[in-house]
């Protein structure tokens, strides 16, 4: 169906940078501490205190901006964004306004299942700011007081703002997944959404055609998106809601004009109910009265420093996928599966592929058997029982004919259980090559003992030979089932 409208989506991502201490003081950023146990006069905003910027926070922000292909201006400064909220103890947030530390970048997204064309999502800016604390309100208690916890106050945040370049919930999700992957690859954040180290707001509106006129519906900012799934659902819900709202307001022209002139609205996603709801806002709340923070010195970053950061970047997910395709002959789907598991698994795969000289087989083992075990064990590759060297040995043993592929899984299980190399597993399982004449003798013996089967086969029921394979395996576990079948059919055909 051709859509009646296009959904236009821009995303604002807030990511907590993985520093040990806060952006402007030296309190720990560890998640999960008892309320108000990780604060000091500076992050409580006590009278007289001053901020001093964490060097590592700036470096991590810079690394991210460079990885997102942003320009890094030589001069950047910090500004105060002023509003009153109990989890913002200074009455202002130290953020960046007109001269952010980076701008004009992009992130490329693609879908392995081809639900959308690969595209480049442009990034308007990425800037470094401080996080606020938390307000805990007991809904049940109704009008009771809210409790404020300032542990999170001052944690370094990078705000990454995209252009409204996405056109579907699937694209938005792909952008977030690719962003998360990139941030994890470059080691700037753990991106844990449950712990709030990756947060997202979505700006959504519709573009549609009304009697030959291009219409853009008022932009809605959706907040309280606590998972990638929530982002997808909220966008889908919001697009449908906005379309319905448009239909209700498109006529008469006066109603339409009024509707289209409405200012940007903020709505909160209610995950349980699966709806967005309008949030109460004061008219003056958007006058943030930004001005340069007199307590902080600006930062000057020279081109050669940016170049050094660029050169020190690890291989990024996109480049890695390309290399797996070109150098290892993997298809898009397999490359995606590997890269999306994180760098450690890719390194494991690369070691298996290089060690065995069989990248395709290595990929099958890693994406099927290894990932299945990791999933069952709920563990990660660094804790995995079969070393990359041993798995490479296994692949090689199969390719060399030393290990019949029919018994490879058994060998893998042994190696997984005791950490042994493939040779030890082969010995332990008593696997040996059965020479063809010995196998032929075995088959003759079986055919002689089973005249009924021979007759059935001769009558054209070839599948009857299957029963013999089981018997052969019992007599000699190393008997290759395919070979047994092949020999038996040959002998019957020869009229034994």
């Amino acid at each position, binding site marked *: 169906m051709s859509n009646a409208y296009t959904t236009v989506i821009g995303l604002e991502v807030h990511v907590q940078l993985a520093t040990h201490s806060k952006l402007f003081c030296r309190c720990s950023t560890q998640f999960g501490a008892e309320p108000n146990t990780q604060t000091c006069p500076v992050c409580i*905003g006590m*009278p*007289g205190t*001053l901020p001093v910027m964490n060097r590592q926070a700036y470096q991590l922000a810079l690394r991210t901006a460079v990885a997102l292909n942003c320009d890094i201006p030589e001069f950047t400064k910090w500004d105060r964004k002023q509003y009153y909220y*109990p989890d913002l103890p200074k009455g202002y947030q130290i953020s960046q306004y007109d001269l952010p530390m980076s701008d004009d970048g992009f992130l490329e997204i693609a879908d392995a299942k081809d639900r959308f064309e690969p595209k480049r999502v442009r990034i308007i800016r990425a800037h470094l700011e401080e996080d606020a604390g938390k307000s805990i309100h007991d809904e049940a208690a109704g009008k009771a007081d809210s409790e404020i916890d300032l542990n999170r106050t001052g944690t370094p945040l990078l705000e990454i703002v995209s252009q409204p370049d996405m056109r579907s919930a699937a694209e938005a999700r792909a952008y977030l997944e690719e962003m998360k992957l990139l941030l994890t690859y470059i080691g700037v954040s753990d991106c844990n959404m449950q712990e709030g180290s990756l947060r997202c707001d979505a700006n959504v509106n519709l573009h549609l055609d009304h009697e030959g006129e291009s219409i853009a519906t008022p932009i809605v900012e959706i907040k309280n998106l606590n998972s990638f799934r929530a982002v997808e659902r909220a966008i889908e819900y919001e697009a449908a809601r906005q379309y319905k709202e448009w239909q209700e307001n498109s006529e008469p022209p006066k109603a339409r004009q009024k509707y289209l002139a409405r200012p940007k609205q903020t709505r909160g996603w209610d995950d349980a109910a699966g709806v967005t709801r309008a949030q109460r806002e004061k008219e003056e709340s958007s*006058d943030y009265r930004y001005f340069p923070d007199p307590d*902080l010195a600006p930062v000057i970053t020279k081109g050669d420093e940016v170049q050094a950061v660029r050169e020190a970047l690890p291989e990024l997910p996109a480049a890695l996928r390309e290399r797996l395709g070109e150098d290892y002959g993997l298809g898009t789907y397999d490359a995606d599966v590997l890269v999306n598991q994180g760098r450690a698994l890719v390194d494991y795969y690369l070691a298996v592929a290089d060690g065995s000289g069989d990248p395709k087989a290595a990929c099958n083992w890693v994406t099927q058997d290894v990932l299945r075990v990791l999933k069952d064990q709920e563990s990660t590759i660094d804790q995995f029982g079969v070393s990359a060297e041993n798995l490479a040995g296994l692949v090689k043993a199969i390719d060399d004919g030393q290990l019949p592929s029919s018994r490879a899984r058994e060998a893998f299980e042994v190696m997984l259980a005791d950490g042994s190399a493939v040779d030890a597993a082969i010995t332990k399982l008593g696997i040996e090559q059965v020479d063809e004449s010995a196998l032929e003798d075995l088959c003759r013996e079986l055919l002689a003992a089973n005249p009924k089967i021979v007759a059935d086969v001769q009558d054209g029921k070839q599948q009857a030979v299957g029963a013999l394979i089981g018997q052969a395996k019992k007599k000699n576990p190393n008997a290759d089932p395919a070979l047994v079948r092949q020999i038996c059919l040959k002998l019957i055909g020869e009229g034994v």
Partner: protein
Amino acid sequence: MSLADLTASELLDTLGRGEASAVEAAREYLALIEQRDGDIGSYLRVDAEGALAQAAEVDRKREAGEELGPLAGLPVAVKDVLCDSAGATTCASRMLEQFHPPYDATVVAKLKAADAVLLGRLNMDEFAMGGSTENSAFQVTRNPWDRGRTPGGSSGGSAACVAAGLAPLAVGTDTGGSIRQPAGLCGVVGLKPTYGRVSRYGLVAFASSLDQVGPMARTVRDAALLLEAIAGHDPHDATSLEEPVPQYAATLDKPLEGLRLGVVKEHYGAGLDGEVESAVRAAIAQYESLGAEVREISLPHSKYAVATYYVIAPSEASSNLARYDGVHYGYRTDQTKMVAELAAERKALSDAGDEAGLAQLDTALVRMYRKTRAEGFGPEVKRRIMLGTYALSAGYYDAYYLKALKVRRLIRQDFDAAFEQVDLIASPVTAAPAFKLGEMVDDPLAMYLVDLYTVSANLAGIPGISVPCGFNTAGLPIGLQLLAPPLKEARLLRGAHMYQQATDWHQRRPAFSATPSE
């Protein structure tokens, strides 16, 4: 001779020679405070117990031959705007009446490390906003030379305390003249260092890009001694300068050969009191007789300095004082009363069917903020918060705040050009001697214009000093201001000391009746 008659430097020597103990000196000052401060009102709180304990500790260390700090045993009083973990820091505001900082300001920590004896906390204009100390929420401070007049402000407590002989040394802060102006009006020495020379960590901010901590004393030598102890780079203050601290006191006696002294032509217009002008001109003549070459210079943008200052300072203040919202520290309005009041308003609006009024009504949280701040701040603080909020608000930012930042650069460039031609600039500190208490409370603009000669140094970030240079016929002190290029405090002090070597204005003392007045 009493220990309290000695200058700080003399007292330090006396203590060093073992001719008196730190406890004796502290006792003598505490007795004088008891006797005289009822009349003056310079101290908000005197910490007799703490001071005597610190003094005893200094005496013990000296006895034991342990190493002593550079201010060992010297009584020092501190403006109540620098955080001290020993007790409250109130900024003379109801808002912070109960605030007990869990940390020491860097300057306070340095004083303690220098083995100074901290006598107590000095009165000031609330949050350092004002020029008469009348904006203190707690008490009036009187000029020791005329009890019906203001000591100036905002460091009026510091200036009055030193002038009345209630501490040999005091610490003040200066955002637009708050050290130099009261020093001038009280006949003492007050120095505002280069911005970044002294750490601001723990100084409760008024206007962060202008605030500086500085010494107040009876003589230039004493000011040099105190500056040396509190100056220096501080990793907790990103705007503090990473420059070594010169030995100000040790180089003081080296005369300034071939001093080129600038006199600003724009300074001598209408509004300058005749007696002040002649005292300042006489001081300049004194320099000439000491071998200085006097040159007329121009600071073409100086007439915009007050306007520039009264945009930038309130803008920063409106932001710095946003944190006083009754949540994490400080005063909060009576919540039960507030909630009841709000409920009554809601009911009234609801009964009247006023939907628009109901939609406009503050939430409990917003009302808590508004009442807390309305009750916790005094009128001048509110005025400046309002002014700054306005100057930064949407639609006015470019016309006011941004414009002021540009004019600020022009003012700085005027100084850069002037200091190509001269080594120091001499000027009046204020256009007139101390005014009467209450004289300007209802005319904020007139009060702001008092800062005419002092604000430029804060805008430009350069150091300035105020030294006594005479008295008017009514016996009120007159001050001379000297300004120097950034980080040239040593030159500034030598220039001021050279003048004090040749004059005796700084040796005069206000009269006190022998018995405490009540």
